[in-house]
Each structure stands twice: as structure tokens, then as C-alpha cells.
């Protein structure tokens, strides 16, 4: 283990209008090591890394590379100086191919300035192979990929830069365990090669799997830096939150009631013959690999995707859903996995986002929308989910990722639904907030809602669900109860259809 850091950020301060995102923060990164960067949502992790990669400029502080002052002007400059970053939010050009995205800004050209496509695609294939995605074609358009696959492309892109410092901001956010394991493999290799890595994650187990040291931030300030060996999950949480947290997956004592929601034979070009039912006060988990069609099931139920066959029944009554608005009217709500594209209207305020699906209920005389009631309602959700915001009027775009996620969930509840579909509800959410969301799920359960929980985080599905169905290649591969659920059982089911037909 080297003692002097390759790269050091000292006393970095950054202020946004109304928020001091970073206050005198320092960070050291070592060659051949992975530095975990930890902290609650909005602690300033991404901001710090965006400064290092030239996206933001710092207000004050210094950066040193091997003790030499380093000045990063813009993203291109950061690349030239050997700093690569995988951003928290996907940053790909959907209309370009996988290979073009990986090499965007660094295309290999011949002496006439002509792009060498062959070389570009061959190289891209190599990096995809390394990440266990050898099946993905480098000439496929990124718009045809699922979120998880796109994330792999982002990782491949960072790898292809052959940088000395690689920053990964929640890289496994939308990956399942298989891909995560592949990523670990790659990270180990990079360590071998003497690269320095920064790893941001809210999945604490990953810190112990792959990181060597951890730096913890809280509210934009530096808290501590320690070798991972000296840490436990509890002590990390203690550092992050400032108090201990018990029970990662709180068990609810609620009893399941009668069947309220049932789908049968749902079929379209993405899913085949999907049937299941949910009871009042039940959490039905849906597990599966990336691209297994879980989100498609949710969207099909919600009227956002056309069905060729199948029925949806709520309270024993078969209903016709042609548009999300009719789903909402029938008491179904859906919290999308992609809060940025599908969940939120970023330029609108927290208040306007939360009340949007239920605006009808805020109408008073002359169809006048009552702002007072809107504020009251949104403050209720802000408080209930501890959304870190300056108030209901703050624009969602200025919230940290985790807090945006909470707003998206609030939006799903405001219509007082009977059935809630949560698609990756804790994606990008810190441990504390996760706990709050789990508590919320339990509260909903006790209130008699039927909940469908789609999640790629195995412990989460297993910890929170009463029953789990597993999807594989667009079909329901099987069902396991909470008591029987083990990681192996679920994985076996998830892989079931893959051997028969390649996805």
C-alpha cells in the first residue's frame, strides 16, 4: 500500500445559489486502491467528483497530482489529464451506437481524418467483453438498450480512456448482481494495474467487497477517512448519519387481506403471458435480471405501453386501461425507475411535481387550483420522507439524486392509490433514506395497499416482500415465498429461460 496519494483534493468549497454543497472538503486517492466516497443523499459526493472531472469549477481549494498543483478546466481537460468519470446520471447519446458512445470525443482517425470504425468497434467489443457483456453489439444504437445495459456502456467508456484516476459515481445503481460481480472483476484488474479509483455507492456491502479505504462526507463537510478494515457497516452509518441505525429491513407485522389486484396473460412484444395477483396489505416482489421485462410489465399495467392480450382486474372488476390517466383513476400508481426521463419534471418545483397526478383534487371554484392546499400536501410529503429541500417551491432539478427519488415516490402516493408499483424505488438512495422508504412501504402495507416492488437489489426484494415472482426473458419463471427465498433460488429462476433463448 502506497502512503502518498496520487491525487489529493484539499479544502474544496463549492456553493450553489442557496446551498453550500461543499465546505472545506478534502480527499486523497491512492494508486492501486479503491477509495470509497460515502455520505447521505446531498452530502456533496457527486459535486466533489464533478469538480475533479472539470464539470464544475470550485470556489476555492486546491487539487494536487503527485504533489503538483493540478488545474482542471473542463471535461476534455480532465480526460487529457488522465481522469475518467462514470457519472451518476446516464450521459449517453441515444441515437449513436454503443461504440460511437464509448469513443465519443476520442474517435480513432486515420491521417485523412477519417474515423476508423473497425478499430473503434473492435476495441469497444473488447471492453464490453471484459464487463461480461460480450453479447452486446458495439454497432447497436444506445436507444435500444435497457437502463442497465446503458450503464455498462458508461463503464466501458470510462475504461476505454485508459485513465490513471477512475471515478465511479454509483456505477451499480442499475446493475444486478451478475453484472456487479463482473464489474468487481474489472476493478480488481485495474487495481493490479496501479490505477487509482474512487467508488461512490449507497450499497454499503460493496464497500467491503471492493474498497480499500473510505472517506465519509456529511452535509458538505469532511467527516473522516479510514481504511475499510477498521470499519463496519454500523460504524459507516454512524459516520454518515451521525447516529446509529437499526434494522436494515424492518419487518412489518401487517396481515395480508383479500385479493385486490390481479393480472392475467399480459402479452406484448416485450412480455409473454404474465399473470400474478396481489392482496391487500401485501408486498409482491418482482425479481429478475436486467432486461428481463419487469419494467415492461409495470408500464403495460399502467397503460404506458400497449398490450396485445391480457386482463387487469382490480377489486374483482376487470378494467380497461388505455392511458396512464385511466390507470390513475382506477387507483393504480407507478413510480418509474428512471426519475429523470420518466418520473419528474425537473424544471418544476417540488410542489408542482408532487401534486401533478392529483391536480383535479386541488381544484376549487372556477377550476382555480388552491395553492395553499398544494403547499400543505407537499409539505406533508417533504416531512414524511425527509426530503432535503429548501421548501416546496424549490426546483427539483436542484435536489440531489436521492431526494429527487423521494419526490418521485411522493408523486406516486398523492393520488391515494390502491395499488402501487414501485420500480427500483431505492435506486440512488442513501441508507438512511432507504430505511425511511422501507418504513413507508410498511406503512402503506398496514394501510391496506397492494404493493408491487420491482428491485434489482436482492436483499431488498427478499427483505421487503411477502412473496416474490421472478421474471426471465419476459416470462414469469416462478414464484417463491418470503420464507423460502434464497439468493440461489431466485438466481436459478432468473436464468431459467436464458439457456433456451438468448435475449
Amino acid at each position, binding site marked *: 500500500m502506497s502512503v502518498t496519494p496520487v491525487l489529493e483534493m484539499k479544502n474544496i468549497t463549492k456553493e450553489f*445559489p442557496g446551498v453550500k454543497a461543499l465546505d472545506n472538503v478534502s480527499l486523497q486517492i491512492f494508486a492501486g486502491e479503491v477509495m470509497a466516497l460515502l455520505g447521505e443523499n446531498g452530502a456533496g459526493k457527486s459535486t466533489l467528483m464533478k469538480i475533479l472531472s472539470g464539470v464544475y469549477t470550485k470556489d476555492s481549494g486546491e487539487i494536487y497530482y503527485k504533489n503538483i498543483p493540478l488545474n482542471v478546466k473542463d471535461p476534455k481537460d480532465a480526460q487529457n489529464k488522465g481522469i475518467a468519470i462514470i457519472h451518476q446520471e446516464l450521459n449517453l447519446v441515444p441515437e449513436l451506437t454503443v461504440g460511437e458512445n464509448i469513443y465519443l470525443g476520442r474517435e480513432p482517425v486515420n491521417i485523412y481524418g477519417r474515423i476508423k470504425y473497425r478499430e473503434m468497434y473492435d476495441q469497444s467489443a473488447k471492453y464490453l467483453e471484459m464487463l461480461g457483456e460480450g453479447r452486446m453489439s458495439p454497432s447497436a444504437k444506445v436507444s435500444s438498450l435497457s437502463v442497465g445495459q446503458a450503464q455498462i456502456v458508461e463503464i466501458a467508456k470510462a475504461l476505454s480512456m485508459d485513465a490513471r484516476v477512475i471515478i465511479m459515481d454509483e456505477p451499480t445503481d442499475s446493475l444486478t448482481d451478475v453484472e456487479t460481480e463482473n464489474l468487481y472483476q474489472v476493478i480488481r484488474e485495474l487495481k493490479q494495474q496501479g490505477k487509482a479509483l474512487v467508488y461512490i455507492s449507497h450499497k454499503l456491502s460493496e464497500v467491503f467487497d471492493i474498497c480499500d479505504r473510505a472517506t465519509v462526507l456529511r452535509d458538505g463537510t469532511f467527516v473522516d477517512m479510514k481504511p475499510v478494515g477498521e470499519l463496519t457497516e454500523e460504524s459507516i452509518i454512524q459516520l454518515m448519519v451521525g447516529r446509529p441505525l437499526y434494522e436494515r429491513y424492518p419487518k412489518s407485522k401487517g396481515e395480508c387481506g383479500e385479493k385486490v389486484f390481479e393480472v392475467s396473460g399480459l402479452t406484448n412484444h416485450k412480455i409473454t403471458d404474465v399473470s400474478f395477483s396481489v392482496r391487500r396489505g401485501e408486498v409482491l416482489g418482482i425479481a429478475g435480471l436486467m432486461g428481463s421485462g419487469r419494467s415492461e410489465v409495470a408500464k403495460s399495467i*399502467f397503460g*404506458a405501453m400497449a398490450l396485445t392480450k391480457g386482463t387487469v382486474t382490480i377489486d374483482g372488476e376487470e378494467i380497461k386501461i388505455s*392511458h*396512464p*390517466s385511466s*390507470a*390513475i*383513476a382506477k387507483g393504480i400508481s*407507478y413510480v*418509474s425507475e428512471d426519475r429523470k*426521463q*420518466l*418520473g*419528474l*419534471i*425537473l*424544471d*418544476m418545483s417540488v410542489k*408542482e411535481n408532487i401534486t*401533478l*397526478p392529483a*391536480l*383535479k383534487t386541488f*381544484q376549487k371554484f372556477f*377550476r*382555480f*387550483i388552491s395553492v395553499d392546499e398544494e403547499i400543505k400536501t407537499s409539505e406533508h410529503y417533504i416531512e414524511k420522507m425527509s426530503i432535503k429541500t429548501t421548501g416546496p*417551491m424549490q426546483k427539483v432539478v436542484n435536489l440531489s439524486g436521492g431526494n429527487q427519488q423521494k419526490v418521485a415516490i411522493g*408523486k406516486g402516493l398523492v*393520488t391515494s392509490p390502491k395499488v402501487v408499483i414501485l420500480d427500483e424505488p431505492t435506486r440512488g438512495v442513501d441508507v438512511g433514506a432507504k430505511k425511511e422508504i422501507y418504513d413507508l412501504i410498511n406503512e402503506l402495507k398496514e394501510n391496506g395497499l397492494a404493493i408491487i416492488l420491482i428491485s434489482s437489489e436482492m436483499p431488498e426484494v427478499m427483505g421487503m416482500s411477502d412473496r416474490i415472482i421472478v421474471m426471465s426473458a419476459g416470462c414469469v419463471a416462478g414464484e417463491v415465498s418470503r420464507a423460502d427465498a434464497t439468493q440461489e433460488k431466485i438466481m436459478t429462476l432468473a436464468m431459467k429461460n436464458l439457456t433456451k433463448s438468448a435475449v
Partner: protein
Amino acid sequence: MKIDFKELLVRFRPLLGLIILAVIISLINPRFLSVNNILNVLRQTSINAVIAAGMTFVILTGGIDLSVGSILAICGAVSAFMIAADAGVAVTLFTTLSLGTILGVLAGIAITKGKVQPFIATLVGMTLLRGATLVFTDGKPISTGYDTAADIYAWFGTGYIFGIPVPVFLMIAVFGISYYVLKHTRFGRYVYAIGGNEEASRLSGVRVSRVKIAVYAISGLTSAVAGIILTSRLSSAQPTAGAGYELDAIAAVVLGGTSLAGGVGTVFGTLTGALIIGILNNALNLMNVSSYYQMIAKGSVILIAVLMDRKK
């Protein structure tokens, strides 16, 4: 709630620009500030302002409407024809306003159901309707005639209520209603939401297609109102009326701080923008600036205004 001065400044920057412009002009030419001239400017602005009010709805959803000038022309021609044919003022107004609305609805349908880009759908609308107007009028102006109905009709463009020109009243009414709808109703909120993120709006249960058709209908309606004001001001409808008005209306909307990407802006800003353009036209005439230099002056002022607005 605490007042956010920065936010307030951003909000009223177009207004600030308007005030600065007015002060400079009145220093150069004191006649500018006479009551008569101010009413004059307001009356002249009314046509562009009314169109721009409808355009604001469209642009807020992230669309654009290039057909406003042609809708104005055909509505004007139809209304002049009907007045001249003694169809009665009420029937004429109703028919004309309906026509404008329906034409807007058709554009909206082409855009939502036909999935044609708004720029193209309304560009085609602009060409088609101009052709239709020329066919309808045979390329010649249609006079409203000289009877009582024509006089009553002329009131909408030339009359006064308490010393204030009727078109100015109409403009205020259009903006008052637009403000209320955008600010305080569900529909208004949806307009902003669609401009902000169409897909997320759909998933929040917003009937995106309906709202979009409605905004083009509104734009068609305001164009028809403008067509009535214009035809009534002249007691005659020109087949070439309204050519190029789309650019003035869009300029007013953008000068008012509304983003062409949609989602952000106010109808109040649009009114300010329309007034800036109206004042500019008036002032250049008052100062007798030669027509070649007028274009340069107008371009420069708009550029400065927009640049000021973009500065952080």
C-alpha cells in the same frame, strides 16, 4: 414566505428592458409619452400581442405555430365577406372565431395523431391557408361594405370604451384570461408540465394529446381574434394580411422570457415583449428613421434585449 429578490429580478427583467427603452425614447422624442401616442402604441400592439398570447401557450408546450398569419388572413377574409354579404355581426364573429379554432385543432391533430413536427405541420398550414385565402379572395381585398353592419363591425377595431380603444380592451381581456388559465388552472399546469417533460407528464396521467390540440386551438382562436381586429380596423380584408406575423409573435414571446424549449415563461412577459416591439416600431416612425436603418435598429434592440435576458 420570503421574497426572493433574484427570482423577482429575473421575472421582471423583460419589464425592466421595456421601461429602459421607453425612457430612452421619450428623452429623444418627448411626443412619445403623449396620451394619444401611448393609446396609439397600445392599439397597434394589440394585434401582435393577441397572436403572441396564443403563441405563448403553444411555445410553453415546446411547440411552435407558424400558421398564425395565414389563419388571421383567412379569418379576416371570411369575416369581411360575411359582413359584406349581410350575415350579421354576431353570426360573423361566431363563424370566424370557430373557423380559427377549428384550423388550430386540425394543426394540433396533425401534430399529435399524425406525429408531424409542429414546425412543419404549421408551415404546411401557413402555405395551404395562404393559398386558400388567395383562392377565396381571388387575390383582391374584400371590403366590408358601407352599411350599418359594417359600421358595427368596424367598432371592434376603431371604437372606444371610456376613451380607450376597443382593440386595447380586447388585448387586456385576452391576456387576463390567458394569465388566469396558465397560472391557476389544471390545464395551465399541464401546459407547463408538457413543455418540461412530455413523457413524465403522460406517466403522471396528463392527456398530452388533448392538451396539445387545445393549445393549437387557442392559438388559432387568438389569430382569429387578431384577424377580426385587423379587418375591422381597415374595414377590409387583405389576402396578404398577416404575412410574417408569426415571426413578430414568436419574437414577442421570446423577448418576454419564454424558452422555445418549452416549460418556462409567462404570458405577462409576452405582453411586455409585444410592447417592446410595438414601441420600437412606433419610435422608429416618430424619429423618421429611414426604412433600411429601421431593420438594423430593430434587429439590434431585440438582440440587446435578448442578450440582457440571457446574462446570469
